[in-house]
């Protein structure tokens, strides 16, 4: 190969370019013009898309890493080991995206370090901030060998890998506890909204429900990521593992569904499920996508043994999960706020850019690092110079 290569314009590259152009404008609007020019947030809707989608969904959908890590390292389910690095990578990138999103979300982001020194242990958000800091560190350490093993200096590399291996079980254990707390606390943030949040979502068990829903959603993301790797990144993987994962997702969703219904009925909120209100529609959309459809589909042999159908079913789970988080953070608060919040396009643009960056980072990590076993380099890879 000689000289400079001009990158070919493909459809995907064009889309990415548009997303980044819009995202950069949104970034400019947020930091040079302020919240009022970059969001539709008001005193009545102080938390919008960046919290609802960026933080609540970002953290929730990153729950796959601790689930798989616990299964492999603590419970000894060796059959999940081939997908361990993928799950940890997705979680790691997810947490990085959450931290990036906070830069947009916080009014004074340069003070993001304040919670390290200024403590308020009565604050749920204080606990959340420490979970983010600590678990991001744990995820970085858990994922680090994939990067370090590419270091050409043998002595340093072997020393680091040996040290990392020594503390690995401890890391996984601490990671499980931190991640579980973090998932629950995000629901706990809304415990203070009693009287504001709609009875379809407000419950003293918000913490439990957030935890129970995050694990199947995180596993669904892992299945989706694995499928995409097999489809387009020339990865060698027995797709039986996807069916295996989905076998775990279904009962977890079932457990969540039962807990949700028991909670609703014990609070006497069942009647709200059938009132003619906008909230009711959002509620059923959430329940249909996250609980009903996946429970039916995942039990069909036709879906179970077909990676592509599994992929689409898992995308339903993810969409249902996102609907739930947006319902808690936005829909359920609209009536009491007396307003109708529709995010500004720049809010979408910033979130989409962060998400796209995650997908691109994931793609290059799978191509250049040993995340999954690979087939021999395919023709397009040689042509593109990635193999």
């Amino acid at each position, binding site marked *: 190969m000689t000289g400079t290569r001009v990158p070919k314009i493909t459809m995907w590259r064009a889309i990415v370019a548009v997303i980044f152009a819009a995202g950069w404008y949104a970034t400019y609007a947020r930091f040079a013009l302020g919240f009022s020019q970059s969001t539709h947030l008001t005193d*009545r809707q102080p938390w919008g898309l960046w919290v609802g989608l960026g933080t609540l969904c970002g953290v929730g959908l990153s729950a796959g890493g601790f689930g798989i890590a616990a299964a492999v390292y603590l419970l000894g389910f060796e059959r999940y080991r081939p997908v361990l690095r993928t799950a940890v990578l997705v979680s790691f990138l997810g947490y990085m995206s959450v931290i990036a999103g906070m830069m947009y979300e916080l009014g004074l982001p340069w003070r993001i370090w304040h919670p390290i020194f200024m403590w308020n242990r009565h*604050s749920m958000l204080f606990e959340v901030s420490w979970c983010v800091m600590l678990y991001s560190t744990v995820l970085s350490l858990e994922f680090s060998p994939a990067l370090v093993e590419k270091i050409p200096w043998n002595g340093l590399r072997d020393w680091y890998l040996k040290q990392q291996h020594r503390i690995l079980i401890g890391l996984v254990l601490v990671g499980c506890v931190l991640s579980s707390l973090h998932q629950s606390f995000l629901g706990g943030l809304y415990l203070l909204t009693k009287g504001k949040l709609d009875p379809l979502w407000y419950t003293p068990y918000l913490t439990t429900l957030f935890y129970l829903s995050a694990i199947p959603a995180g596993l669904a993301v892992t299945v989706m990521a694995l499928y995409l790797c097999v489809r387009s990144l020339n990865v060698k993987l027995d797709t039986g593992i996807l069916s295996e994962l989905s076998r775990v997702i279904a009962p977890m969703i079932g457990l969540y569904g039962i807990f949700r219904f028991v909670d609703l009925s014990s609070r006497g909120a069942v009647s709200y499920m059938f009132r003619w209100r906008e909230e009711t529609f959002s509620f059923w959309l959430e329940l249909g996508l996250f609980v009903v459809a996946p429970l039916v589909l995942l039990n069909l042999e036709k879906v179970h043994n077909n990676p592509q159908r599994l992929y689409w079913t898992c995308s339903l789970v993810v969409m249902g999960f996102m609907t739930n988080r947006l319902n808690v953070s936005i829909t359920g608060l609209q009536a009491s706020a007396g307003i109708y919040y529709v995010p500004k396009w720049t809010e979408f643009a910033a979130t989409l850019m962060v998400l796209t960056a995650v997908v691109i980072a994931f793609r290059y990590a799978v191509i250049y690092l040993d995340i999954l076993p690979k087939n021999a380099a395919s023709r397009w890879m040689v042509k593109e110079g990635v193999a």
Partner: protein
Amino acid sequence: MERTRAILVDITKCIGCRSCEQACKEIHGFPKETGAKLSPTALTVIEEHGDKYVRRMCMHCQDPACASACLVGALKKTSLGPVTYDGSKCIGCRYCLVACPFSVPRYEWTKLVPYVKKCDMCSARQAKGQPPACVEACPTEASIVGWRDEILEEAQRGVLLDPKYVKHIYGSEEAGGTSVFFISDVPFEKLGLTAAPQQAMPPLSAAALGDVPTVVLVGGSLLAGLYWISERRNQVAAEESRQIK
């Protein structure tokens, strides 16, 4: 408990002159224009509901949701009663706006370095023994300030003796009790004073936070136990396969 300060607003006495609004703006150096709602430059406003004038401001809860929400402790319930805000700690997360049961705090959405704005009951003035600027400016004694126990007693006496009053003091139960009270001759719902939960808010999340040590201990040891079992099983299996060879 130490004695704390409180404000009593008698809606039957308010004539809507907006002296309180203007006094508040003056002491904070805000522009004089009046608006209909609380804003970052209007920490108290007179809302008109029919022929009634209702003064809105921070309720200065006894156990404030905002102070328990604030992760860096920028919001505090001071020993004298006012709930104050320390902008130098704030990171701009706006959880206080989400948490406030009365939806009082305002955010400077138009600024590039935005802070939270809310009434601090003239905390600095009160520490020097002066009344809050708004109370001092009131010509009809619709707003008065005093020790909370005395003010509450006075409100109770007024409500009981005069049949025109609604038999409830808004703020005595709301959000577990506040340091700003309203008495009125029309129902509070008609004055935009919504029914906040009749309980202190912070215990709602404190209950979940209280579970943390248990979750960490039980969950952690459970996981460690499972790890030990699976490790042991592997060891035994390895040993057995060696013996067979």
